[in-house]
């Protein structure tokens, strides 16, 4: 069997063999976990009933929603979970190992025509007290077809940094790029994240759950997780034999976007028991997008992505192979081309394209081509029947980014097709290896894990642009961490410690002597994290987390010396930059009752040696013109802010959903504001939902109002143009689900920027050149199919 190789790889890791399991047939499995209610805030379900009819076992959850059953037999076990006011879950678990599951129950008001229940293995190596928001189910389905950055904007505290209509990257609590780490299916996403116009190289369709950790999570994930982490998790693979799948179709009027994404998955039975697989692919095509008054020429894109997963899990060991490929070609708006400072001034003074443009799918220079390949092998083995487990994940990523300027290089040699030569061409190869040992719970109260991370990068640049933004480099890093949690009465206390080491060598010509320089750096630093969670009563709880984090300066920050395209800015790196250190404080309170769910959080994040590109207020003059100069420099900075989410059922079938994000960032060195921080944002919706009309279910209408204030907190003389005024957008959506061969077909229609206003967002880097998107109408279809009897549960493991 092919899988033996992988299994034996895991089994031969030091110290494992002795305690491997031999018995499978005995009823020695345990299932424990937690029952939650509601979609957004995950509150504990107290005294929920849990029954195993075939085993004649049953019981109720404790005050904190926990349950624990022993003596479960391997194989298929029916489980019924019921809770007053919530939909009863009745499904079959295919048990092959001890399971720790989270069950999420939905009431009728919140059951937005999506997953009935989501089960997942509680990761003991996660930070429990960190402030998290989850995008899943109907909320995630409503964003289908959008890029990752745009999808996450619906979460309080999360914003996006745009470069025109087709490039968007997430901003968490005011920080972005290399301060936000993305974990793509358990692997650190390693692309060219240093560029503000470099969006994450990820197809959001791979995930059925996106978790945003707001705040430093370096303790678990290492450097870059300094301001937040985005976890993209696919649905757990099927365990019951058969095959099923899902087809997502999205059409949008603005840009005439078409998106098709399909997933096909299945599992083997009998001889092939334990074997699961999934194939997934997405195609997107878009043409020129449209603002309220004109088209944006050259803003189309073509994307195609696919992934494949193969898993073999037995009771106490298992392995998974995963491969994904992301390919996109994105046109950059012609109107954003500014080759020097006078071009830029001219473009800003005009503030819109020269002409109204027209629609077409074809686009050319300037554009970007990005390919991201990920290959991953992972496995686990249980070291004892008390919950001690070892996991290993190895991943290799190859990210290539080719940027084509507006003009091909002039060249007399016509045999060279300069039109096809990229001006910037980077290839970043990354290998990561993670080993995690989760120890058996001590006296059922203390859980935790110890882990090792290794990482190495190599960057090869082959662009034709004379001014090299990033030289070739190689780096190695290693980290070791431990996280422990102690649960007692109303408290959960946790603490973690980590130590990291990183070595980097760059290869560049010395600009004056024109000989190769090999500047070499090493950094090492500990990281700590402590947190507490307290339950005041059944309705009210609080979480506090304090974490430190650090990141080494990035290569561009150390070595840049050249024009950063599309900003028409000259950037200077500083090879003497030291590491950036963050101290994060997060406090969050949650209240819930039958009608009201509130999550209110505040944070105070102090950055020591915060690295940013400071305007030098002088100009670099070259043959091509003059450029304003920016130098990477370090200051101490303080980010404070608050997030509020609220769901209030104020009348029968009527729900108010309100989200507020506020962030303030101060440059402590000059006692002034920091540039590039999102303005205050207020997102409010009113939703009316009929539970069912005949065969149709979850019929809803929703009206949405988004208010974004003007960013008035900017330092003087720091930007090419003043921040744009605030704006208000209206939106509406409607949808339903209908039975389709025993499954649920879902249809929804939504409109954004309903009144088609002309507006600009401060966080859009292209706001200087043109307005943001006009009205967009999106139609979404979710068509499930398959050979299996539909069930509403996904089991982890």
């Amino acid at each position, binding site marked *: 069997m092919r899988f*033996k*190789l992988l*299994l*034996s*790889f895991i*089994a*031969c890791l030091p110290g494992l*063999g002795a305690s*491997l399991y031999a018995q499978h047939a005995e009823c020695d499995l345990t299932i424990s976990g937690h029952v939650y209610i509601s979609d957004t805030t995950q509150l504990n379900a107290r005294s929920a009933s849990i029954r195993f009819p075939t085993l004649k076992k049953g019981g109720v959850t404790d005050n904190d929603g926990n349950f624990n059953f022993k003596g479960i037999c391997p194989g298929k076990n029916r489980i019924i979970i019921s809770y007053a006011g919530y939909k009863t879950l009745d499904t079959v678990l295919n048990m092959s190992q001890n399971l720790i599951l989270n069950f999420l129950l939905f009431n009728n008001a919140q059951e937005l025509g999506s997953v009935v229940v989501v089960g997942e293995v509680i990761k003991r190596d996660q930070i429990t007290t960190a402030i998290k928001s989850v995008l899943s189910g109907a909320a995630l389905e409503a964003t289908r077809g959008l890029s990752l950055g745009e999808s996450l904007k619906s979460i309080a505290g999360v914003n996006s940094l745009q470069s025109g209509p087709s490039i968007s990257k997430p901003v968490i609590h005011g920080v972005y790029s290399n301060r936000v780490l993305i974990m793509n299916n358990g692997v650190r996403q390693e692309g060219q994240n240093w560029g503000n116009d470099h969006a994450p190289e990820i197809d959001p369709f791979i995930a059925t759950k996106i978790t945003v950790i707001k705040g430093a999570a370096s303790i678990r994930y290492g450097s870059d997780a300094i301001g937040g982490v985005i976890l993209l998790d696919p649905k757990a693979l099927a365990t019951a034999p058969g095959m099923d799948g899902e087809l997502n179709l999205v059409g949008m009027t603005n840009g005439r976007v078409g998106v098709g994404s399909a997933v096909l998955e299945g599992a083997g039975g009998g001889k092939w028991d334990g074997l699961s697989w999934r194939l997934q692919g997405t195609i997107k095509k878009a043409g020129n997008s449209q603002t309220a008054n004109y088209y944006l020429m050259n803003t189309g894109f073509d994307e195609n992505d696919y992934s494949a997963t193969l898993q073999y899990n037995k009771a106490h060991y298992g392995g998974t192979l995963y491969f994904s490929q992301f390919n996109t070609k994105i046109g950059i708006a012609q109107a954003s*081309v*500014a*080759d*020097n400072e*006078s*071009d830029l001034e001219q473009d800003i*003074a005009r503030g819109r394209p*020269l002409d109204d443009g027209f629609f077409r799918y074809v686009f050319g220079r300037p554009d970007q081509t990005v390919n991201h390949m990920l290959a991953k092998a992972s496995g686990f083995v249980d070291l004892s029947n008390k919950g001690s487990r070892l996991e290993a994940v*190895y991943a*290799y990523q190859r990210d290539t980014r080719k940027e084509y300027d*507006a*003009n091909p*290089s*002039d*060249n*007399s040699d016509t045999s*060279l097709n*300069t039109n096809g*030569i990229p001006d910037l061409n980077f290839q970043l*190869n990354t*290998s990561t*290896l993670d080993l995690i040992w989760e120890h058996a719970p001590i006296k059922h109260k203390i859980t935790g894990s110890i882990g090792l991370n*290794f990482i*190495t990068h*190599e960057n*090869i*640049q*082959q662009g034709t642009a*004379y*001014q090299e933004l990033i*030289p*070739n*480099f*190689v780096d*190695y890093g290693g980290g070791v961490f431990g996280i422990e949690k102690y649960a007692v009465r109303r408290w959960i206390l946790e603490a973690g410690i980590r130590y990291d080491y990183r070595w980097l*060598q760059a*290869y560049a*010509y010395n*600009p004056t002597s024109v000989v*190769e320089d090999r500047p070499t750096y090493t950094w090492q630093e500990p990281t700590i994290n402590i947190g507490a969670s307290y339950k005041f009563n059944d309705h009210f709880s609080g979480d506090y987390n304090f974490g430190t984090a650090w990141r080494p300066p990035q290569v561009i920050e150390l070595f840049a*010396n*050249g024009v950063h395209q599309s900003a028409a800015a000259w950037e200077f790196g500083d090879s003497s930059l030291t590491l950036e250190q963050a101290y994060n404080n997060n406090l969050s309170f949650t209240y819930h009752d039958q009608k009201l769910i509130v999550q209110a959080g505040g944070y105070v994040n102090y950055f020591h040696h915060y690295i940013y590109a400071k305007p030098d207020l*002088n*100009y*670099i*003059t*070259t*043959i*091509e*013109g*003059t450029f304003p100069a920016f130098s990477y420099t370090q200051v101490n900075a303080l980010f404070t802010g608050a997030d509020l989410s609220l769901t209030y059922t104020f009348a029968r079938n009527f729900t108010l959903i309100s989200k507020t994000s506020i962030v303030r960032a101060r440059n402590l060195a000059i006692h002034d504001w920091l540039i590039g921080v999102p303005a205050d944002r207020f997102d409010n919706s009113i939703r009316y939902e009929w539970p069912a009309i005949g065969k149709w279910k979850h019929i809803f209408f929703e009206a949405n109002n988004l208010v974004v204030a003007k960013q008035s907190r900017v330092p003087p003389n720091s930007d090419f143009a003043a921040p744009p005024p605030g704006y208000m957008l209206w939106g509406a959506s409607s949808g339903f689900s209908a039975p389709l061969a025993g499954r649920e077909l879902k249809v929804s229609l939504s409109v954004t920027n309903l009144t088609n206003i002309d507006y600009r967002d401060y966080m859009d880097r292209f706001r200087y050149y043109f307005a943001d998107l006009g009205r967009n109408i999106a139609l979404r279809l979710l068509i499930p199919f398959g050979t299996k009897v539909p069930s509403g549960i996904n089991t982890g493991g």
Partner: protein
Amino acid sequence: MQNLLSTGRKFLPGAVILLLLVVSACNKAAQTVTPSLPGNEFLTTVELRLTNTANPSDVQLAISTQMSPYTHTYQVDSIYNNLAFLRLKANSTYSGQVIILDETQTPVDTVSLEILARENYHLFFFQPSPVLSSNFDVSTTTTYIPQADWLTNVPASDTTAFGIPENEYMTNATDSALNLVVNRTDLDANSPPMQIGLKDNFLTGAASTGTLRVVLRHQPNAKNGTYPPGSTDLDVTYAVTIY
């Protein structure tokens, strides 16, 4: 159990090799400076070569370059204006030529020939300053730059040869204006043909001093004789003395 352990031993070497691969996955290509791609060209030098039509031995050459006169190497972020000045006789006509070089190549590459080969995409502009307001006229046949695109914010520390500030302005007084008019004399292959500006006539008036800004606009599939479409390929300013 035993079976698993023995297969474990069997595959131990493979696992060790895999681990070694993890920590030594280094590519030699990353561990050196990547050589430049062939055919990669830059604009390092812009020359104005002017010949007095009445006196062919009166040849003026003005040079603006990013090649250091000291090390003869390309300087990424510096421009050398030591030779970027024109001395022209009053009330004369000079026939002029714009020569653009890539001096990082051996032999030196004449980029202006490649611009000529793509004449339909390129258009030169010549803005004297201070310009006499009664002369200033933006059209598809004049070489003036629209006022919105003038240099006005250049710090006083950035000057041309002779220490003249680069910022452009207009004057109503003939006495204080730079009495220079530049007309393009070449045409491209567009239909109808449009001017290019690689070849020009420089007409001088009374003695005066000022600056001449030369801008090459790159306007692929957008050239219409005006300044706005496209982007700027080069933008240099020369000091001018008419005597």
